[in-house]
């Protein structure tokens, strides 16, 4: 599984780094910084939760191909 963040959509709600701090960090302005682009299996639930709670739909999870 690959995580992608669309920086143009992110407005800094911060749900991702609140819910999945291992995978998402924050920059100076509070926008999302991707820390881990290919989460380990035990991190998948967190990654999914972050994507599911981003009001801007800025986080995509792709099956690694």
């Amino acid at each position, binding site marked *: 599984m690959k995580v992608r963040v669309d920086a143009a959509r992110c*407005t*800094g*709600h*911060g749900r991702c*780094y*609140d819910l999945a701090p291992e995978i998402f960090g*924050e920059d*100076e*302005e*509070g*926008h999302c910084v991707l820390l881990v682009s290919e989460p380990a299996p035990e991190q998948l639930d967190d990654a999914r*939760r972050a994507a*599911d*709670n*981003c*009001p*801007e*739909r800025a986080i995509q999870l792709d099956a690694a191909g």
Partner: protein
Amino acid sequence: MSAPNPDPETRTVNLFDGELARCPQPVYQRMHAQCPVARAAMTNSPVISRYEDVIKGLRDPELFSSEMDMQMALGTERPMIPQQIDPPLQTRYRKLLDPHFSRKKMIELEPVIRADASALIDRFVDEGHCDFDPDFAIPLPCHAFLRLCGLPQEDLDLFLSLKNGIIRPQLETKSIDMEVNKKARVETGHRIYAYFEDVIDDRKKSPRDDLMTRLVQSEIDGHRLTRNDILDICFLLILAGLDTVTATLGCNIAYLAANPDQRRRISADPELIPNAVEELMRWETPVIAVPRVATRDVEIGGLEIEQGELVSFLIGAANLDEIEFPDAGAVDFDRERNRHLAFGSGPHRCLGSHLARMELRVAMEEWHRRIPDYAVEPGKAPRYSPGIREVMELPLVWPAP
């Protein structure tokens, strides 16, 4: 009998209806079923309720502008920054402001705000009752605001009167005369400008480690913020940062007082609080709508909107949309997927959302730690204000020690 709200015959909705303030969810559900695009009673302006329509609108500032003329004026002399300006200028201000409101910065304030919350509770916990709004929900965000700006806590009462003078002038003037209240608003506006003029002068002379100093020193593209820029930002912070948190605290506690099973869950398991805060933001959405102006003719869901019309994006209704939120009518603290819009969406996403979330979490934690078992005073009912849903009367009782 009064007209139903919304009225499916005329496809109108009264956003200032007392019932909508007290218990908006059934109104929103009827809107989704009967008229997800409607017009507001009295003003006739378009009201948009569907989640998809609302996010599309809020993310399209070219089509739906935040630059509205003084129809929304609240004692200000110029547009409020950054709420009443559009990208790309708005983006430049946000770049400058966002770092001072980031989660990282707000977490640094957590210990003092926790102490403020606890000190407020100390005053009434042994009495076994309080008026939640004046005793807790109003002062706490004001303490937080003073801490954020680096202003003296002794200015609390002054700030409360400035805030009322702008938002609810009738509380200060004790009059319902529109002209009297309009004048009071303008006068309060001058007092707010004058207060911050003094603070700006002071921080220019003697810089400190606080938000006001950072505003005085910050630059956009190599230019310092002007004095008017800073005043317009401060004005907005008072309007946007106090009542909103007050209203949310009131709505949350009123909900929990009325739903003892949910309240007991939270008191027994404070780890639920962050998620409960999000779910209650969705359910209650105390700031029910955000306004925009259509920059050209456009159609949404069959409703023809004309250029120049003021459009209300009803985020409260969007947060009850079944298409986005399965089982939207249930309050579920374990909801896994919650992309609620209580802090808006798009470029104007609430600047204070990280501060607000921290205040709400800390307040809920301190309150339930000290007063886990509370209810509305028997025989009384909470009273909600129209517009921003502040619970102006919320008498609570609990077993005193």
